[in-house]
């Protein structure tokens, strides 16, 4: 399966990536060959193989006890943020 330019534009939009005009053909070709590479799997007969969600599926997911272990370090964390006001992380306006 090869991807069209529209496919790549949509994927880039969903991933919030901006791709220049010059880069576009490279992405179309490279992404297509990656998808084709993975497509090889569909030629393998997998009808009797259970889908595997995780390579360590045989192991138990460890469950954590419901205990509060973390304390407030927001000042330290917010020192890394570009903008902070009244304890809030400030971002460009988002509103419905």
């Amino acid at each position: 399966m090869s991807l069209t330019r529209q496919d790549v534009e949509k994927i880039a939009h969903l991933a919030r990536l901006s791709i220049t005009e010059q880069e576009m053909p490279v992405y179309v070709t490279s992404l297509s060959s990656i998808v084709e590479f993975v497509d090889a799997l569909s030629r393998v007969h997998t009808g009797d193989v259970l889908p595997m969600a995780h390579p360590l599926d045989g192991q138990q997911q460890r469950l954590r006890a419901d205990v509060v272990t973390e304390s407030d370090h927001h000042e330290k964390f917010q020192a890394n943020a570009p903008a902070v006001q009244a304890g809030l992380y400030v971002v460009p306006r988002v509103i419905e």
Partner: protein
Amino acid sequence: MMTDWEVVIGLEIHAQLATKSKIFSGSATTYGAPPNVQADLVDLAYPGVLPVLNGEAVRMAVKFGLSIGAEVARRSVFARKNYFYPDLPKGYQISQYELPVVKQGKLAVMLDDGTVKTIGVTRAHLEEDAGKSLHEGLANASGIDLNRAGTPLLEIVSEPDMRSAKEAVAYMKKIHTLVRYLEICDGNMQEGSFRCDANVSVRPRGREKFGTRAEIKNLNSFRFVEKAIHYEVARQVDLLESGGTVLQETRLYDSDKDETRSMRSKEEANDYRYFPDPDLLPVHIDEEFIEAVRATLPELPDEKAARFAQDFSLSTYDAGVLSASRELGAYFESVVAALGAGHAKLAANWVMGELASALNRDNVDIVFSRVSPKYLSDLLLRIVDATISGKIAKEVFEAMWSEGKTADAIIEAKGLKQITDSGAIEGVIDAVMAANPKQLADYRSGKDKLFGFFVGQVMKATEGKANPGQLNELLKAKLGSS
């Protein structure tokens, strides 16, 4: 010809699980903390951090599954739901997609007319909540509070089984009752602990194929659910009858304007590219775990209602109201215990009547009722032993409510004790008859309706304290013997 439209509704209810810590981190989940003090490195999506699943959240989800007779998945998988929004620092929400922890179940819901309808629950899955975006007080910017990010949610997805806004509200109320019974969610809708999305479509009655649905997001009160569905149904019917088509889209209910409107930004983001989260192993739940959870199941609302109806000879409706919450049920039962099961109907009437309206009026939770079960049963005992009439009891109740005193203290202080001395009542009757010769003559010449007039006069003269049963009897005898 007008088309007869059938409404089809499915609900996705988000119940915030009442854990102390978050679903994948050790941050606290306390409501109302200052911004961002309960958001740790995992919640903030710092590089290199890993989620660790909170066992209590899993236990709560299983508890819910067992309560609706659903199969609990022996193996469930967390998946990443990918989208970009500032209140979601990871760029994906950890949820469950193909393999949820709770599979198909069902719930019986009683409608206003007393009929019972079974609503299918397609699934319930665990997921994390996002943070909160705030827009006030910031010029051209939004503020992000990530305290809520990572709070455990149980998303309960219904089948499209509801056919009216009323049915949808009845179902939502039932789930609300259930999660509080199970003590897995505090049900606080103002704080957003319990909210829902409604999928609404219409189709000509008789047609099998569903119409195109719109999804109304984030409804956080029963009233809004009802109003939003009404608005949305009318909008879709208008659209279809004027030759238009309904778009499959996400809409927002604006309670100020009482309308729904399109959330265009969410449309293009609809491709969530789910895939299994490699940071989390599939969750395996064994028989032992399930049975341990089953052992913690309380008496469920339907079981309690059935027991109330059976043991106390209450109507299905009364039994349903009194079992609407564990606290209300417990209150009612302690009143009945003090009065004896023979007086359960009296207790039911008072709990659903005077008590409920006082709680409602002053917006007090039954747990903090100013009249305790003991005080109420003491009051009702005074009706049972004929110390006071039911009517006077209401006056006593109001005084108990505002003064916090016992019934006996108020009856004593206000001199409300019922007059049960026949001689005394007869004396008053004689005086009333002597003072109203015209009415007496009219009554005796056949105006039976005047009986009520005499009752009223005697009650007035005794300030309502004459025993009503005795008064009736004595009055009948006196008026009849000319």
